């Protein structure tokens, strides 16, 4: 049985519509804030901001000219700040048993898991090898994880703003101050937005408390096979709403509870589901509009947003078609409900699960409201591909856009040559240095995915961590490395990933996938900033036309697909082909 597309289509249009309508004003606002403009929260948050700025030794926000850094300075600050964040996040997990606010009395997190989690949250990946409610205390969730949810997203916005300044600059090495970018984006963008979302989520029933876990009496006692009767259940609680707001908005995705947004305390109502889904794409989409403002040509931002949207819609359509056809073998048994319901929350069903699945892997969010492991093979494969494209279809906050701009540079280069001119983008000539940096940044995550998967599938012990035999087991390994290397953080499940090997291997992938991209991106910003501008003419390749958007989409797809088609063929493709011939993989 195939599902009617109407409810899914309605949800998709509603959600995408909410995102696109909000993206424009929000993007304009972010651009103004990052350029030192006035904020409506000046009176409320101004003192807090000035205190932070003073602590970092940066001039006042209004004098936008002061405290600027070169690309090397900016990159050093990013690395320094991230290293410090990594240490603090690691340390808090290790000593949470002596810290207050630990009503469940949870012990220290193991060293490899703590390191993996620290890298994971600092890199905006939020891969979770642990189960939140049984591992992390309230203090750890708030101090370590929630802080990184904010600042890792702020780092992304900062690096993106620096890149935009490099493009906009002419003969200047000043990319702005990292510290000011960090503080302004956190205080004036991320804090108010997540406070707003958290309040709405609480109104929907998302828990927000510092009280201990609750013991409740079951309405219907459960009798186990050995005859023991269970009459009570412990309900894990905690300050969830505040964290969920930023985990959605900041493309973090690290759930408060293990089952993430499939949990009724994280995502209780249709409205909360709509808001949480839309929040995934909100900031990445808004930043495209900010980019247009920054480079003083709004069409450039819209062009990139259009390319991202088309790619998302293609992916969504592919996943929907695959999911709505479900499992032929089950359909043959006369099942008259959707056959692809295994692993999905019945409250959401196929459409809302597919929508979230596409959004969360397109953006590097990684939160889930259904288990991706149980998606039909092609739908799971598309989710994987969305990550493997380099998390550029919306992608992470800031990181998705600067990743996409790397693809724009490649597109501009090839098509610029085709019109017989030295390639240029936004009045800057693209030379060997930019190409080298773009190549490094684009190659690193792909190489990590392939090498990681090759190593893990070669080692007998780790390959066995994927309990499913055949192509599905391979998909689980490939998904894990695709997610980590591209800083997505969602998991296919299946793998018991909380082991030293997986923690270290995926930790390395997340680290490389984040900083091996940020540094070359800032180097490009520095190099473009030093260059003079060239005057556009009709001999110049326009980069805002539908033709260029189409080309950009083609380049992203061709590079991504050509790199991963062999691997995907051995995983999801084989699995789907088997499913078609009556197997159940």
């Amino acid at each position, binding site marked *: 049985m195939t599902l009617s597309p109407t409810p899914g289509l309605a949800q998709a249009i509603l959600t995408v519509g909410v995102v696109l309508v909000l993206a424009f004003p929000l993007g304009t606002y972010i651009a103004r804030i990052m350029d030192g403009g006035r904020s409506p929260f000046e009176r409320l948050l101004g003192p807090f901001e000035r205190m932070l700025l003073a602590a970092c030794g940066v001039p006042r926000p209004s004098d936008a000219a002061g405290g600027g850094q070169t690309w090397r300075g900016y990159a050093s600050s990013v690395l320094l700040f991230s290293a410090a964040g990594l240490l603090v996040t690691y340390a808090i997990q290790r000593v949470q048993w002596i810290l207050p606010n630990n009503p469940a009395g949870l012990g220290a997190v193991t060293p490899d898991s703590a390191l993996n989690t620290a890298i994971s949250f600092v890199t905006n990946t939020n891969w979770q090898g642990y189960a939140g409610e049984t591992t992390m205390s309230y203090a750890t969730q708030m101090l370590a994880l929630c802080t990184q949810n904010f600042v890792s997203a702020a780092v992304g916005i900062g690096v993106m703003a620096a890149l935009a300044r490099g493009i906009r600059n002419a003969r200047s090495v000043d990319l702005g101050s990292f510290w000011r970018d960090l503080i302004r984006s956190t205080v004036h963008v991320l804090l108010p937005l997540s406070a707003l979302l958290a309040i709405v989520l609480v109104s929907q029933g998302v828990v927000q408390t510092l009280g201990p876990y609750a013991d409740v009496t079951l309405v219907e006692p459960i009798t186990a096979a050995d005859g023991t009767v269970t009459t009570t259940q412990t309900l894990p609680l905690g300050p969830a709403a505040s964290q969920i707001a930023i985990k959605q908005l900041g493309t973090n995705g690290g759930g408060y509870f293990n089952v993430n947004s499939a949990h009724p305390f994280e995502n209780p109502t249709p409205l909360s589901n709509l808001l949480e889904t839309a929040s995934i794409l909100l900031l990445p989409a808004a930043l495209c509009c900010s980019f247009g403002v920054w480079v003083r040509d709004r069409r450039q931002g819209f062009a990139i947003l259009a390319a991202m949207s088309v790619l998302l819609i293609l992916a969504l359509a592919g996943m929907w078609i695959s999911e709505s056809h479900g499992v032929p073998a089950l359909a043959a048994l006369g099942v008259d409900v959707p056959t692809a319901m295994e692993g999905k929350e019945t409250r959401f069903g196929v459409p809302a699960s597919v929508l979230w699945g596409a959004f969360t892997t397109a953006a590097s969010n990684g939160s889930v409201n259904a288990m991706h492991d149980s998606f039909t093979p092609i739908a799971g494969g598309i989710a994987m591909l969305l990550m493997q494209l380099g998390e550029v279809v919306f992608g992470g906050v800031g990181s998705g856009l600067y990743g996409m701009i790397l693809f724009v540079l*490649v597109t501009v*280069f*090839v*098509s*610029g*040559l*085709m*019109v*017989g*001119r*030295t*390639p240029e983008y936004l*009045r800057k000539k*693209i*030379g*060997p240095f*930019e*190409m*080298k940096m773009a*190549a490094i940044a*684009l*190659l690193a995550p*792909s*190489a990590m995915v*392939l*090498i990681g*998967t*090759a*190593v893990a*599938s*070669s080692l007998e012990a780790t*390959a066995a961590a994927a309990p499913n035999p*055949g*192509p599905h087991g*391979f998909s689980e390994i490939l998904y894990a490395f695709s997610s980590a290397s591209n800083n997505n953080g969602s998991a296919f499940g299946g793998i018991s990933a909380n082991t030293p090997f997986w923690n270290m291997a995926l930790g390395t992938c997340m680290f490389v996938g984040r900083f091996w991209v940020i540094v070359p991106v800032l180097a490009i910003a520095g190099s473009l900033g030093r260059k003079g*501008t*060239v*005057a556009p003419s*009709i*001999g*110049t*390749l*326009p980069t805002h*036309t539908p*033709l260029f958007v189409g*080309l950009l989409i083609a380049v992203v797809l*061709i*590079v991504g*697909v*050509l*790199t*991963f*088609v*062999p*691997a995907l*063929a*051995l995983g999801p*493709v*084989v699995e789907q*082909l088997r499913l078609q011939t009556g197997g159940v993989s």
Partner: protein
Amino acid sequence: MSSTATPRRLVDAELLRSALVDAIRKLSPREQLRNPVMFTVWVGSSLTTVLWVVALVGYGEAATGWIAAIAAWLWATVFFANLAEALAEGRGKAQAASLRRTRRDVQARRLGGPSRDAVQTSVSAADLRRGDHVLVNAGEMIPGDGEVVEGIASVDESAITGESAPVIRESGGDRSSVTGGTRVLSDWLLVRIGANPGESFLDRMIGLVEGAKRQKTPNEIALDILLASFTIIFLFACATLLPFSLHAVRQNASGEPVSVTMLVALLVCLIPTTIGGLLSAIRIAGMDRLVRANVIATSGRAVEAAGDVDVLLLDKTGTITFGNRQAARFHPAPGVTVEELADAAQLASLADETPEGRSVVVLAKRHGVRERTLADAHATFVPFTAQTRMSGVTIGDRDIRKGAFDAINSYVRLLGGSIPAEVRRDVDMVARAGATPLVVAEARGARTLGTIELRDIVKGGIKERFAELRAMGIRTVMVTGDNPLTAASIAAEAGVDDFLAEATPERKLELIREEQRGGRLVAMTGDGTNDAPALAQADVAVAMNSGTQAAKEAGNMVDLDSDPTKLIEIVRIGKELLMTRGALTTFSIANDVAKYFAILPAAFLATYPELGALNVMGLEPSTAILSSVIFNAIVIIALVPIALRGVRCRPVGAATLLRDNILIYGVGGLIAPFVGVKAIDLLLNVLPLIDHVRA
């Protein structure tokens, strides 16, 4: 250099023979290392050859014949790429050889000092250094590039320019530069040598066509990086397939892993071998096209910069207009007929050998005045002098004079007459329209006959060329010493976008700087010494070969034909060079899609037979991979003509150009291998001995 010395056809038998030999020589790994893409193919070929030898002794990972066939075609891929490069080089070499023939070892008369009377020593031209003085007599070859210090002579420069008419070379001024290898026809020249051996134009030109200077341009380096990163990523994608397939076999406990030969074949098909193999051929052919246009560039960089040019500064005289003003119209005075004025003007100009004078005769003829000679008219010529500032004739008692208004005005006044107001008005009108008025008067009766309007004549077809440039986004600026009025009128007629009137070298330099500050690349031509600062400042500076040494040194290109409109052609050549690279890169990458569909099902047939569903082309699994490798190799040869000729640059905007090239090379590149691989596969399967090379 005459065009007959260069091969007319793209490839002839002799060229092909020597290219084949070169292509084999280039198989050495040292030659291959320069090109990361082709080096990867070379390593792959070597690896499969080793695997074939291993298979021969009984440890084959696959069928021996199949490994041999794959190895052979991989070597063919390298060979074809070498052949493309060798063909391009060969065409250049043929030209260099013809250039070299012009350089015989001549004996030079070296002088002890810059004087004709100084001590003469006879030395070989090869021993002359910069700053030496030599004396060249009639009939002798000029031994090296330099500047005329003394003397005036006619020189035959046909060996360099192909132009058979001799040119005048003299000391001082803008005609003082001489080129080695040209011959003095009359008189003598005292030349100061300007270049050490090995640095002369001829040497530079030979070096250029032979590709001796192999420094890559920034665009090439950037493209190399892009191609290298594609190669690296496909290397990862293919290399990791081995552990992936081993894992699959282990998990399934059935099937066979993919063979190394298979992975090498897949890798070579995926990496951009088409563009990688043709890259150096494209560069050499681009330089070759420039040399064929009789232009020497100091570097490949200058050629590419020509493709980026936004503004062309063109001298009015000689580029936009013919060198001289010409009579365009007669304005008779009141009471005088046009025929009468034309008749008088013709008589006054009969002996005037200046182009202006000749043009008056021509115009008069159009008014029905028959041709006459001084002898027919029994006239005496009154030449132009600095005192009278008039010229004319005396026929019996008729004295006819023509000259500038002031000169004729005083002439008429002296005779007791005055110029009528209508004529004054005509003179003003002509001057305001940017033309030059000449007034004709007759002594008898102190009579003013009327005005001849002399104006610049814009070259035919130039307006259309400027329109083409505009369509390509290039702005043309006319540079002239004329007053703004004259300049504006000619600019409008020629269809240039802008003009610089009353130009001085300083104003020209300032204009270039201003354009560059606005982020525009400027190209210009120049020949005089006073052009040198502007030439040095411009991004693309073409010096005329007839120009001074200073101009040539300041520019980054020299046009041997001294044709200022050549700039337009140079821009086209620069663009075509870049476009060819871009188009073939797109084609190369677009090809990969089909190759996956061809290779993956066959490669994993033993591991996952289900993947046979991806075999959309319906290829025979045992020959699919070989077919893909063969297609990949022969597409290089098939595209050699495009690499050598270049992708045509049409005068349209960037958006249209991109759309068309995407359609041809992008979409074409997607479709071509589906058709090509299928055709090769069908063909292979009807060959009699095919069973020996099946997988």
